[in-house]
Each structure stands twice: as structure tokens, then as C-alpha cells.
């Protein structure tokens, strides 16, 4: 790995070494090149943002990281090792959790159950034990339930615990999705437009949660967001993409003043 | 007084087409008795139908529903018969399955509650082979056995196989799946490829019409095509009309339109508006057969009433009645059914009667008798019957037999 050194952020937080590195990733769908030869890295403990116009390939990049797409070319390095081609669920088991741009909750289940699914990677009682509701299954259920309740408290969704998610308004769904991802106690958390469709107040709440997660659990966060206020305030470093190419990478200030970025995305300086 | 003799009918489902005329014939005969004579021996007959749609499941349901008061059960399909057979042995109700059911039921010592007179499938198979043999030795010939892939269709196989071995012909069973009844081109292609000398058909419901049309299409010589009695339904042949000329079906019944019975039926039932049948159907083989079936049951009831001196007989008494049917030629004439059924008799050991039958032939518009009475050669497969019955009894142990009855009486 090239750069395992950490760095210190503007507001004085210590960031760790490289957690994940994308090397020369290219992704094609038939004729469409969604990602073209992009490299960047994510350090342990930082908040990394990916921005860019619509259709730039941001979500696709997240999908590559979480193993949903296999890159046509390029390598993914994770925790110091090259990641072999693997199934998405194996990636998840390595501690990568995510939320989705178009909410992907399990609509038929309650909030509690949805969040509990986040713990699946940590539970392994056998079928018989579960069928009898005895021994390991029961204990495991209770232990994990407690962890989940902590996440639920943390995200302030106690009162909707037993509501089927299908009935929830959009913003709350996003929060439940975050809860599900958090319940997995990931080392890398991927957020695809966590604040889309929220008003300022809700964005504030969401920001608070993201920062708290980052602070309290030291979770590394990689997020995509279109609200520049949020991106600039929250992130430590920003990657900018346009038409599948990387056009900028650096601290919010650097990016903000990058002429390419202004032309392609921001329009006016923010 | 009323005697409850429910009929597990099927006027719905894929076999309805063949079921309806039979059910009508059966019902009309009983209605006629009720109208003309006030029933049998003073007791009216409650011939209620319970609809099964030929489904075994519904059949069992009907059996359970009716068995409380019924003095007889008429299950009306080989599947249902097989299913209720062990139950009747416990519930002690006679099963009357004229011309269908399980052939070993002939052995009354084992199947004390089951009856399938006047002839069983093994009789039928034997009669058909006799008929074919009469046209020339079967040695080295090939007979295709086109059958419904269902217990009913497989029923005659043991006798067919026995004959194949003894007479040196090649037997080629060709099954027709329940879902393929209307689409038999594969079967008929096979027949075309194998070029059998004869096709013997054990078909039912929509299968017969399918087979007959296919036979016409592939230009199979109709005179070499013979069916069991259930494959001789006028409507099926009407589909092809003239082209079906020469097709044959063995039968233990015949619609003698001139018989006095037909006039009585017309007068007391049809004209009185008590029947669901129509003019055309009435002339068919199946309607006539329905009449015969009920006549047999009525005969059994009458026997029991006379023997036990009461009109209000119970199931056990009816069994005696059915075991002592003696339908002589005189009696047949007396019933006004001349030429409609061959004479036969039953005993406690012989529950089938082995009446024999006529070969009917389609003349382009209707079935006509094409042979004298053919009698089955029961001795040839008496052992088969006995063994099969024994085997059944052992695998269903404990099985109550009729200990008082021995094969000789």
C-alpha cells in the first residue's frame, strides 16, 4: 500500500491509515462506461465524500466498493490486502455496510426486524436451536436485540420500533436504513445520498448521527451527497466525479476552488 | 318408508360428458319405479346424487357424508372404489360398482361387501381377446393397449399380459396421461410407427373422443380398433360420424329402444318432466346402461325384501340381496329389458356374475350388436383373481372375510 500514514484534519482530529483503496477502477455496462480509470483511497476514521453530477457514476462506485458490481478493470484493496472477487454478502461480512439511494428496506417487516437483519452477520445459531427457541438461538437473540436497541435509541426511532416500514414516511425510512447499516457495527459505512428528500432540520439530525457514528465508534464513512452545504461541512476529503472520470480529489476547500469542479458540478462557488 | 341409495355421481369435471347419460339412466330407472310402483316392495327409493366430479377426494367426502343412512354406496370411479373399499369393510356397507372397480372384487369370500356385476374388467379383456382371436390366430400379432394412465386404465393389464404370453402376441401398452387426453397425437404417432394389428382401448371421458378422432386422422383401420364398454359412447363417435364406421366396443348392455321398459320410462319419467335427459341421449348406449345398473340394484333390494320379509331393509340385508341375484332370461323379460343385458347370477363367492357381453359396432350413426353373446373364460384367470384378492387382504390386515362362504357355493 502506498500511503498508510494518517493525517490530521483541519479541526484537529487524527485520521488513521488507508482502509480501502481503489486502483484504476473501470466499469462498463455494454457500451456505457460508468467509471473510467478511477483511483482513490479511504482512510480509517475519515469522512470521505463522493460528489458529482447526476449519472457521473457515484452510485456505481459505491456498488463496486460493496461488491455488487465487479469492476471491469482495476483492483480493490481493503484492510491492506487485495480483495479477490467475492459475493456481496462476503463483502458485508468483512465489515462493509451501506445504505441505498432508492431506499432498499424490507418493506414487509417492522422497523425492529429490519434493524435486526443488520445483525445477521453476527448471528449463527442452528436451525434446530431456532426452531425450538432454546439455548443458543434464544440467548443470541437477546444479546443482539440489546445492541439493536442501542442503535434504535441512538437514532431516536424508539417510537416506531414496531411499525411496518412500508408505512413510514421517506425521511424516517432513510433513518431506519442507517440504523440497519449501523447495527452491523461496520468498519466502513457507505451512504448513498443519505439526506436526499429531507428538509434542513432533518438534514441536521442526519448530520448529527453521521458525525456521532464517526466520532463514537470511529467508523469510517464514505458518502455521496448532493447538498454541498452538508458535504463541505461534514467531510474530511472529497472525490469529484464527472462522466465516470475523476476530476478532483482533496479537502473541501481544495475542491471548492477547483475550476474543473466548479465548471462541471457546482456552477457557482459554494 | 324410504330406502337411501345415494349415487356418487359426476356431472361435472373432465369426465362429465360420459358421466351424465349414465347418471340420468340410473336416476330415471329409480324414478320410474317410484312413479309406477311406488318404489320397491312398498319402500320408495331415495336416489340422491352426491357430486364428485370424478375426484377421489370429493368422492370420499360424499361417502362419509352419506354412509350414515345409506344401504349401499355407488362410488362411480375406480379411484373412489379403491379408496372406500377398505372403509366399507369396516363400515359394513355394500359397494355396488357395476362394470368397474377392482377386478378381484369378484372374490366374494374376501371382498364380502363389494360387487361389480355383471362383468369386471378382466372379463372385458378376456372377451375382447376372444373376439380378436375369432378373426384369426393372434400368434405373432401385435396389440396396442391404449389406456388412461390411471388405476382404471391399468386394471386389465394382468389378464392382457397373461393372454399375450399364452397366445403369443406382443402387447404394447400405450398410456395416455390425464392431462393429455385431448392431445393424443404422440400416442397415435407411436401407433403409426409400431403398426399394431389391433388397438384395444381402455379409455374414459374425453380420452375416447380424442383417440377416435386421432384414429380417423391417422387412417387407422377402424375395424381393428376395439374399446372397453366405457369407450363406447355414442357422442364420441358422432364426432367422426361415418369415418368411425367399424369401431367396436365390448358391452354388457345394449339400448334396446323397443324394450317395454323404454316405453315405461318415457311415460312415467320423461313425459312427466322428471328427467334431465333428452331424446337423443336416451337412445344412447350409456343411458341404457344406466338403466341396467339401477335395475340390478333394484333386483338386489327386491331379493333382500323378499328374503327378510321387510320392505325396510338395511345394508347387511341388501348385501344378501346382491349376493343372490339371479337375472335369468325370463326375469329380464319380466323386467321389460329384453336384449338390454345378458343373464347372470351372483353368489356369496361370486360377486361379479361374469355375464359376458356383446361386441357392439358403430355403423356410422349408432351402435349395433355385431356378435353373439361372448362369455368370458373365467377359469383362465380364476387364480389371478384369488391371488390378487389374497394379496389385498394380507396387505390390509386385519381384513374381515366372509368365513361362512366357501368358493364352492
Amino acid at each position, binding site marked *: 500500500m502506498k500511503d498508510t500514514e494518517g493525517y490530521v484534519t483541519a479541526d484537529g482530529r487524527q485520521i488513521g491509515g488507508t482502509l480501502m483503496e481503489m486502483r484504476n477502477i473501470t466499469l462498463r455496462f455494454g457500451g456505457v462506461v460508468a467509471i473510467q480509470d478511477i483511483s482513490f483511497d479511504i482512510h480509517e476514521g475519515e469522512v470521505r465524500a463522493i460528489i458529482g453530477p447526476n449519472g457521473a457514476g457515484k452510485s456505481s462506485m459505491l456498488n463496486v466498493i460493496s461488491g455488487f458490481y465487479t469492476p471491469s478493470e482495476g483492483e480493490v484493496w481493503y484492510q491492506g490486502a487485495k480483495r479477490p472477487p467475492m459475493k456481496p454478502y462476503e463483502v458485508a461480512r468483512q465489515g462493509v455496510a451501506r445504505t441505498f439511494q432508492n431506499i432498499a428496506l*424490507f418493506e414487509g417487516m417492522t422497523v425492529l426486524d429490519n434493524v435486526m*437483519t443488520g445483525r445477521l452477520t453476527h448471528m449463527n445459531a442452528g436451525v434446530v436451536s431456532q426452531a425450538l427457541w432454546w439455548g443458543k438461538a434464544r440467548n443470541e437473540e437477546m444479546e443482539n436485540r440489546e445492541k439493536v436497541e442501542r442503535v434504535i435509541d441512538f437514532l431516536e426511532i424508539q417510537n416506531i420500533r414496531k411499525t411496518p416500514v412500508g408505512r413510514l414516511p421517506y425521511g424516517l425510512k432513510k433513518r431506519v436504513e442507517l440504523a440497519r447499516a449501523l447495527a452491523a457495527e461496520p468498519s466502513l459505512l457507505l451512504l448513498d445520498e443519505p439526506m436526499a428528500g429531507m428538509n434542513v432540520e432533518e438534514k441536521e439530525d442526519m448530520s448529527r448521527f453521521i458525525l456521532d457514528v464517526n466520532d463514537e465508534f470511529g467508523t469510517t464513512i464514505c458518502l455521496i451527497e448532493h447538498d454541498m452545504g452538508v458535504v463541505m461541512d461534514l467531510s474530511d476529503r472529497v472525490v469529484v466525479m464527472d462522466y465516470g472520470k475523476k476530476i478532483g480529489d482533496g479537502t473541501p476547500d481544495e475542491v471548492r476552488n477547483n475550476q474543473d469542479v466548479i465548471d462541471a458540478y457546482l456552477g457557482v462557488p459554494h | 318408508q324410504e330406502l337411501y341409495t345415494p349415487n356418487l355421481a359426476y356431472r361435472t369435471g373432465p369426465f362429465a360428458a360420459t358421466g351424465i347419460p349414465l347418471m340420468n339412466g340410473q336416476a330415471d330407472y329409480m324414478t320410474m319405479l317410484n312413479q309406477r310402483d311406488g318404489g320397491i316392495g312398498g319402500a320408495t327409493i331415495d336416489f340422491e346424487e352426491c357430486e364428485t366430479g370424478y375426484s377421489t377426494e370429493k368422492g370420499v367426502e360424499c361417502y362419509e357424508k352419506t354412509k350414515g343412512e345409506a344401504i349401499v354406496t355407488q362410488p362411480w370411479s375406480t379411484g373412489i372404489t379403491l379408496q372406500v373399499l377398505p372403509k366399507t369393510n369396516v363400515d359394513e356397507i355394500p359397494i355396488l360398482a357395476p362394470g368397474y372397480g377392482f377386478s378381484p372384487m369378484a372374490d366374494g369370500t374376501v371382498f364380502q361387501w363389494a360387487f361389480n356385476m355383471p362383468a369386471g374388467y378382466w372379463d372385458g379383456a378376456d372377451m375382447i381377446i376372444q373376439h380378436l382371436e375369432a378373426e384369426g390366430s393372434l400368434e405373432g400379432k401385435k396389440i396396442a393397449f391404449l389406456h388412461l394412465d390411471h388405476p382404471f386404465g391399468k386394471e386389465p393389464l394382468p389378464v392382457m399380459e397373461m393372454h399375450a404370453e399364452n397366445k403369443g402376441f406382443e402387447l404394447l401398452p400405450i398410456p395416455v396421461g390425464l392431462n393429455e387426453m385431448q392431445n393424443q397425437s404422440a400416442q397415435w404417432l407411436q401407433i403409426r410407427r409400431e403398426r399394431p394389428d389391433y388397438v384395444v382401448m381402455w379409455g374414459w371421458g374425453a380420452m375416447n373422443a380424442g383417440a377416435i378422432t386421432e384414429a380417423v386422422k391417422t387412417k387407422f383401420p377402424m375395424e381393428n380398433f376395439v374399446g372397453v364398454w366405457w369407450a363406447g359412447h355414442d357422442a364420441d363417435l358422432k364426432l367422426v360420424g361415418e369415418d368411425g364406421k367399424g369401431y367396436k366396443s365390448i358391452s354388457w348392455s345394449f339400448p334396446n329402444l323397443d324394450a317395454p321398459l323404454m316405453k315405461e320410462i318415457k311415460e312415467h319419467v320423461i313425459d312427466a318432466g322428471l328427467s334431465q335427459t333428452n331424446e337423443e341421449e336416451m337412445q344412447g348406449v350409456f343411458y341404457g346402461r344406466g338403466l341396467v345398473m339401477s335395475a340390478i340394484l333394484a333386483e338386489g333390494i327386491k331379493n333382500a325384501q323378499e328374503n327378510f320379509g321387510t320392505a325396510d331393509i338395511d345394508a347387511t340385508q341388501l348385501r344378501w340381496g346382491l349376493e343372490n341375484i339371479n337375472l335369468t332370461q325370463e326375469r329380464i323379460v319380466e323386467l321389460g329389458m329384453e336384449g338390454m343385458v345378458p343373464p347372470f347370477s351372483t353368489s356369496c363367492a361370486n360377486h361379479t356374475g361374469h355375464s359376458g357381453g356383446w361386441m357392439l359396432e358403430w355403423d356410422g350413426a349408432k351402435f349395433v350388436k355385431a356378435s353373439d353373446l361372448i362369455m368370458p373364460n373365467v377359469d383362465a384367470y380364476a387364480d389371478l383373481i384369488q391371488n390378487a384378492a389374497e394379496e389385498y387382504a394380507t396387505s390390509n390386515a386385519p381384513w374381515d372375510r366372509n368365513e361362512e362362504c366357501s368358493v364352492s357355493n
Partner: protein
Amino acid sequence: MLYRTAGQFKTSYIADQALFPVRQDAFLLGIILIFGWVIFPMTASEFTVQTLLIPILIYALAAMGLNILTGFAGQLSLGTGAFMGVGAYACYKIITIFPELNPVIAILLSGFFSAGIGVAFGIPSLRIKGFYLAIATLAAQFFLAWLFEKWSWLYNYNASGAIQVPNSEAFGIFVMGPQAASITEYYIVLFVVTLLTVLCINLTRGNLGRTWKATRDMDIAAELIGINLLKSKLTAFAVSSYIVGVAGALYVFMWKGAAEPNVFYIQLSFQVLFIAIIGGLGSIMGNYLGAILIVGLPVVLNVVAGTQVFEMSTGSAILLIVLIAVATFLFGVARNLWGMGAAIGFGAVTLIYGYAQLHGFRIESAMIEHINVMIIGALIIFFLIIEPHGLNQLWRLIREKLIIWPFPH
């Protein structure tokens, strides 16, 4: 305020995770259990046990098995009938090979065979989804049904191709076969069904249940959060087929007493699917409600249609009152759904039917059957419309209303 939940607090997650967080539900369940285990067996007639209680339980169990697969894991299956068949044939082989084995154990063992076959046919589910997956299960359905016909080893080379339940003893009484008392069979069925229901409830509320539901709701997301889809789907196929197989074994060995291959045709699959859907996909209790409706209703309709008011027993009188209540309810709903016109039409039909009943107008059995088929078809549509999520959801809504009652919201 029948369903007042106020004042019931949970102080631990264990308590919250209990089967019935609301006390009234537990109470209700108690009542149902008492009815099932004590009151029904004491009061029901043989007919009721045979045509209502036993089949309802068995069908509910089969539907529950299907529900695990389709309702919980989201994999549509149209092969239930064949998997029931695998269970039944496996049980038959086990019982004939080891006649000494306790029949209940044999039944529980036979499920493992269907589970194995189920898993085999479930493998394509990883690639094939939705209706396309139904094809895989249909392939199982048709292929297995064909195998039941062709592989004579399965039915011990019986001539008829049917399997027959032998009389077997356990604990000194006959527990299966024609000699077994209905009530014994009922208790065995009830025991097995209760046992499997409890296991199912546990499975579906635990980790595995969540895995299934996640797979059902959004398989891509499920995989991305760490669920191994293959494992999730195959466990669902295994558990589901196990239950379905046991239901199949019960179906033949505790209820029908014999079975031909065509019993396990696709019609059976649909029947079970109806129950699961009408009852409510993704619920356990719904299967019982669905079975009561789909299995019970035709029987009840038949009984009512066959009974004239003047010769009515108290039992049918109660039935009639219940039916009137149901009709009133349906009338109300119809008005909501399709407007007054439809409701009046509906009412008129009901009245005519009732009038016909009163005047002893007896409809032909076939007509009753036709009308029954129509009514069932209409009811399926009707229930789907008033509550697409099934009777279970309907019950839940009623319950939710009761909880907040008497406040409207």
C-alpha cells in the same frame, strides 16, 4: 374495550419477544386450543371429523409449509402437490419396509425425503425469480407426478398403481388404516400439526425468519447486507418441503387411506396455494383461517344446499344463522366495493336461494356443484379484494380497531 393493551408493560426484551405480547391473544389461543383438543373431539360427529376437522388441519399444515416458502421467503411455488406426494410415497415406503416402526415417527421421518427433493428443485431459485421460478416448481410438479405413475417400486408394484394404507398399530390401538378410529387419527394429526406450528412460529420470528423475509422483500439489498441468498433460499425450500411432505403423509395416511398419483396433481398445489393466499402470505395463523374457508366452505355449502329447512337439524339451523350473518357482512362489503347496485343484486341472489330452500326446491347435485365452484371462485376474488393480505390481515385490522375502540382513530 375487549382489547385493551394499556397497562401491559414489558420490562425485558424477553418478555417483549414472547409469543403473545398482548395478553388477550394468549387467552384467545388458550380457548382455541381447548376447542381443538377437548371440545371438538368430544362433540363432533364422525362426519365432521372426517370431512372438516382432519382435512382442515392437514391443509392448514400444507399451506403453512408453502407459506414458509412463498409467504416468508418470497419464492412462488406451484409444486406443493408433488412435494406432498413425495412425503406420502416416502411414508408408504417407510411403513412397508419397517412395519414395526411407530407410524407417527414414520410420518415425521417422511418429511426429510420431501425436504431433500425440495432442496434439489430449489437450486435454480438462485438464478430464476418470480413467475419464472414457478416454472421450476412446475417442472417438479409434473415430473414427480409422472414418476409416481411410472416408478412402480414406489407403490410396491401394485397392479392398480395406487398406494393403500395398511392397518398399523401403536400403543395397542390402530392408528392408521381403515381400522383406525377417526378420533385417533384426529388426535395424531392435531399433535403433529400443533408441534410443527410451534416450530414454525419459532423459526419465523427468529433469525432465519428475518433472513427469509429480507430475501423476499428485496433480495439484492439482502445480499448486500450480508445474507447468503443461496443458503437463505435453500433453507426455506428445505423447511417448507419438510412441512409439506409431512402434510402429504398425513393427508394419505391419516385421512384418505389410499392414493393414486393423480391425487398429487397440480389441482392440489392450487388448493394449498389458495389457502395460503386467502389466509395471508407471511402469516402462520392465516393458514388455519384459509383452510377453514377453502376446505370448510364447500362442505358447509353442500350440507346446507342438501338440507331443506323443514328437515333441518339444530346443527344446520345454527349453520344457516351463521350463513345469514356472513351474507349480511358480505352484503355490507359489497356495497362498499361495488356500490349499491351490486349489493342489491347480491342480496337478491341470496334471497332467491333462501326462498328456493324454504320451498323445498331441491337443486340437482350437479347444479349445486357448479354453483359451489362459482361461489368459491367469486369468494376468492372477493376476499382478495377486501383484503389482499389475507384473512390474517383482516383479523389484525379488526384487532387494531378493537385496541383503539371506542375511539375511531
